[in-house]
Structures are given as structure tokens and as C-alpha cells.
């Protein structure tokens, strides 16, 4: 698993609630049997004016000029500022794969859908939940900085659990200990769980005795 420690990067706005994973990466790209290469198709339906197909070269496709990630000031964005219930809908891990491949490593929103939130941590992406009022304020600051040529840069420190704004304000965020630990160290979840192999075997043995119909039936 990829690690996340400190990130300082341009922040782009995704100013709508309930951004679903179909919007993050449309279904035609889910036919891939690979984990990589989804970045060019991130937000495909709102990012381009035509309809994308898997494997297509995106360099000549017509861009939607209204979409923030196409605007010069958001080029190279590493952080996405978003609204309520980000990542709802389908469980596709292709959504964080596409974000990560594009270069987005942190998403800040008032709330996330659970499966998406969980999938982010598996892919070195830090989803940060902040108060809706704080997120609204960040949106205002971001829009107010429009004239500024470097863009709106946020610094995110996972260990300290802080987001630092260009004005120097430090905003604290919560993250569960276990997730933080795994993400900071880029730990392999499976190896970690396999440390409990004895406990799993013990459980399995007694569970098999109690519920024999759950074992050896399907094969």
C-alpha cells in the first residue's frame, strides 16, 4: 500500500454535493483488468465534451472549459475540495485509482460515502472530513484567490492531523488511529491481518462446529 505523510499542493474545487463514483469514473472504463491508467478518464463525462472510450488517447479530445481541472490555475492539483456525500454510489475502487493516477492525493469534504472513504485509504489517498461550514469557508477562500497566480495551496500533514491554509490557519481533522497508522507507513493490510492467523483459525474451527452448513458446500 502507498503511504501518505505530508502533502502540499494546488487545490481544485468540485463544487457539488453527492458526487457519485459513476461521475468520477464512468462505467466503460471499468472493463480494464488493470489497476492503473485511469487518470486521463477521471471525471470523463464532465471533463471532456465528447464521449470517452477505454484505451482512447485523450490528448486531442475537446475539453469542457467550464470544468475546473481544465483551467490553467488548477493544473497539477493534488487536493480536491468537495461537498457532502462525496463518492456515493458504486463501490468501484476504480474511482480512487483514477484520482490517484491523475495526481489527487487528498480530498476534503464535509462527508464521504463509506465504501469510497475506505477505498481511498487503500490507495494512498487521504479523505478529510471537515465541518460543512469550514469547507464552505475554504471554497470562498479558494474562489477569492482566483487572481493569485500560484493557485490555492493547502498543506496537509497526516501525522499532525492538520490542514494549513495559505493564510496560515491551521485546521485540525480527525482520522481513525488504525487507518492513520497504516497510511503513514504504507502498510500491507493483508500481511497485517495474517499476523492474526491463529485467531482466525481458532474462530473458524468453532464456527464450523456451530454452523457446519457454511462449510465445504460450495466447490
Amino acid at each position, binding site marked *: 500500500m502507498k503511504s501518505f505523510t505530508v502533502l502540499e499542493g494546488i487545490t481544485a474545487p468540485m463544487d457539488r454535493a453527492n458526487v457519485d463514483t459513476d461521475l468520477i469514473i464512468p462505467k466503460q472504463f*471499468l472493463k480494464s483488468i488493470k489497476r492503473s491508467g485511469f487518470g486521463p478518464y477521471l471525471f470523463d463525462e464532465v471533463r471532456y465534451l465528447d464521449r470517452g472510450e477505454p484505451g482512447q488517447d485523450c490528448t486531442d479530445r475537446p475539453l469542457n472549459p467550464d470544468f475546473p481541472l481544465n483551467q490553467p490555475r488548477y493544473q497539477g492539483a493534488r487536493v480536491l475540495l468537495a461537498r457532502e456525500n462525496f463518492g456515493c454510489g*458504486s*463501490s468501484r*475502487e476504480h474511482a480512487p485509482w483514477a484520482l490517484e493516477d491523475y495526481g489527487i492525493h487528498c480530498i476534503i469534504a464535509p462527508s464521504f460515502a*463509506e465504501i469510497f472513504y475506505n477505498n481511498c485509504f487503500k490507495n494512498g489517498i487521504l479523505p478529510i472530513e471537515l465541518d460543512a461550514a469550514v469547507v464552505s469557508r475554504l471554497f470562498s477562500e479558494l474562489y477569492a484567490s482566483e487572481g493569485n497566480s500560484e493557485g490555492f495551496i493547502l498543506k496537509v500533514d497526516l501525522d499532525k492531523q492538520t490542514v494549513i491554509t495559505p493564510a496560515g490557519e491551521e485546521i485540525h481533522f480527525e482520522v481513525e488511529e488504525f487507518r492513520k497508522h497504516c497510511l503513514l507507513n504504507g502498510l500491507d*493490510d*493483508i500481511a497485517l491481518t495474517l499476523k492474526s492467523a491463529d*485467531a482466525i483459525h481458532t474462530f473458524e474451527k468453532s464456527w464450523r462446529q456451530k*454452523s457446519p*452448513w457454511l462449510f465445504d458446500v460450495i466447490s
Partner: protein
Amino acid sequence: MSGQTLYDKLWHNHLVEERDDGTALLYIDRQLIHEVTSPQAFEGLRLHNRKPWRVDANFAVPDHNVPTETHERSGGVAGIADPISRLQVQTLDDNCRDFEILEFQVNDVRQGIVHVVGPEQGVTLPGMTIVCGDSHTSTHGALGALAHGIGTSEVEHVMATQCLVQQKMKNMLVRVDGQLQTGVTAKDVVLAIIGEIGTAGGTHHAIEFGGEVVRALSMEGRMTICNMAIEAGARVGLIGVDDTTLEYVKGRPYAPTGQIWEQAVAAWKELHTDADAHFDRVVELRGEDIEPQVTWGTSPEMVLPVNGIIPDPASMDNVGKQAATERALHYMGLKAGMKITDIKLDTVFIGSCTNSRIEDLRAAATVVKGKKVSATVKRALVVPGSGKIKQQAEEEGLDKIFTEAGMEWREPGCSMCLAMNSDKLGEGEHCASTSNRNFEGRQGFGGRTHLVSPAMAAAAAVAGHFVDIRNW
């Protein structure tokens, strides 16, 4: 001490280890696998030289991008026209062969949508923990199983360890008492619930559905409700085990028999919420108040009774809601103040893991019997949820009713629910769909989805616009 909810019981039954940091290791009884979210997990296993912890806990079926037209389907995997889809289905076959996992392949009569096939075959049983790389895994909760969707990394994790690292969810009860009006179905109930609590209303909760209306539903109807728990933000939907559940499970191919059946039934009878259990949140609806529902926007919470009027963003005080409504109306090509019944339809889709079971097909067939699809409707598809359902429907002559009405009768699969195969909406087309998501582009680029029950979809096919099924 207060009693336990059904969710609490399922959780405790499967607890391998609790950790100080608040997480727990939960044992997983069954993993359902399909072609879209598994290739990268199998690849991960290979990369690390890992084997499945318990091969017999896994079961696979291709569904998302299998073709549903008979001529394309008849060629099996090799006959899939789209090379990328073909490779994905072939990869599932190869992986299942290499790892010795049971798979119902594309032209096996038992093949179908994973969430339809699991319960139908007894691969899903009460009291199990079930995961699948698909958010609609919540469907299986209708049998009193703890079932939820996971990402591909977790698919690999469960294959390798038979466990999932989890945090306990909160308990929510949605109780629907009273009685449904004639023509109002489980689909309308769940859409009304989502309209009430919103698409994030169930986040971090396991939703148990209860009350007289839910108890009176068939298993098919219960599955429709749990299926869409995820559309209310809850990964888990649950319904307690009762006689309806036991009757449904009995005799299924992979269900226990004989003495083990008796033993299982004794255990399953405990699978309901204790009378004195505590819920963190309770939502109550009256069955009588629920009308046939139609979604008008691009999120399942944008839903109204069929006699409703498209809302006016200008009348909303919440700026975010106003913007979302404006965007949805623009995408859907609808105007504020318009009647739902004036929405003209180009396509009708009856299918998906929400509504493709035999009862759904019967309901739709009853409505179209002896009638014709409106001349203004370009296409009406009926896609059964599994080969078994298709067979059963044909025995009952439902296929004839559909084709005589001018509808297409297809092979089982996800089809136009997510349009990964060639069944998709054209740009700007309005579709009455029995599926579960009306997101932008879900059923095809620029497609406009309206979620409804099977009977409502069938009636809309005949009328060419939405009609109140209660007056049919």
C-alpha cells in the same frame, strides 16, 4: 442490559478479534465475485504468491458486461463482440479455474446477476457474513445476512484472510407499518424511504427494515428494499428471519438438508432484533401514505409520487439544494412545474438486481398483457435476473406476453442498469427503469433515467408517459 439488534447479533457471531483502536476483525462466510471488480484482486494474490484462505467460501458469476442479445450470447465468451468486455469475462473464467473457485459461466442456465443468483441458489443463507465487490451486496440482507459491498483491495484481503477489518456501524430502524395501497410495491416503499432520509441518510448505519408492511412482503420484495439501502447511504440493509425467509431458503441447491437443515433453522430463528434492543435512529413511515414513486432527477432522493410536480429551484432556501436541483433539471431536460405524468419516454428497462425476479416480471406482464408498447417508445427491454428466472418466466408464458406487446426478451445480466454492454440509452433519451441509480450517464452518456417499479415501468411503456398504476 438491553437486548441486541439483528445487526449486533450478526456482528458478534463473526467477531474474530477486537482491537484497542476500535477496529475489529470480522470473519466472512461468503465472498461473491464478478468480472469487473475482481481481476486486480486476483492479480494481487498472484503478485504476493498468496492463495485463497478458503476456496469454498467463494463463488463467482459474470454479469456486468455479458451481452443480453441471444445471437451474441450464443457464442459464449468467445462470442462477446466487444474485445475489452470479452477479455474481462475470460479473465474471470481463467482466475476461477486457476484458483479452483466455483463459477457459473456465461451460458450456464444458473448464470445471472450476482445478487439474484446468490439467494436463488442458496449460496446466500441467513446468518452469513457476505461481501462482494459491488455496492448492491446489501440485497442479501433481506435473508437476515450481514452483507455489504467492498472495494477491490478488500476483495483481495477477504480472499487471502477470510476476514475484513471493520468498525461497528450504528443501528437504524426504518419501520413501515400499516398496509400498502393496491399497485404500490416494495420499490415504491424504498424510493419513498430514500426520499424521506436522503442519499446520505443511512451513512455509517446498518438499516434494519421492519414493520407490518415489510413483514408482509415476499422475499423478492424484501430483496428490492435491501438492495437500495445503499442508495440511502447505508452499506447494510437487513430484515429479520421469519417463516417467509425459511420457506424461501428451503430446498435451494446449496441450502442445507436433513438434520443439518433442522440445526440451521434453530440457529436462524434467533436472527431477529430483540424486543428491548436499542436503535440509534428510528424512522417511521405509514404504508397507506406511500404512493407510486418516480424519480425526476439525477440522485435517487430526487423522487416524487407519480402525481407530483417537478420542483422549482427558485422556491428553495438552501443554496446547495437549489444548485443541485437546477443542474438536475438541466441534465434531465425538465422544467419546474411540469407534471411527472407529462414526461415522455423513449425507452423502458425492466431488469437489474433491484427488480428482475420472477415476481417483478409477473407484475410487468400483468400490466402489458394484450396491450402494445406505445408507438412513441423506441425500445422496451425485459432482462431477467438469471437463467433460472428466464426459464420459469418462459414456462409461465411471460416472454410471449412481452414480445407480443412489442418488448424485447433478453438473456440475463446487468444490461442497461449500468450500460457496460451494448444496452445503453442514447443521448437525451428518457428511460423508465426498474434499476436503482439515476446518476448522470449511468445508463448511457447523456441518458435520462427515471426509477420506478416494474408495474409502473410496464404501464409507462404502453402509455408512452408515466401513469398512475393505481388507475390502470
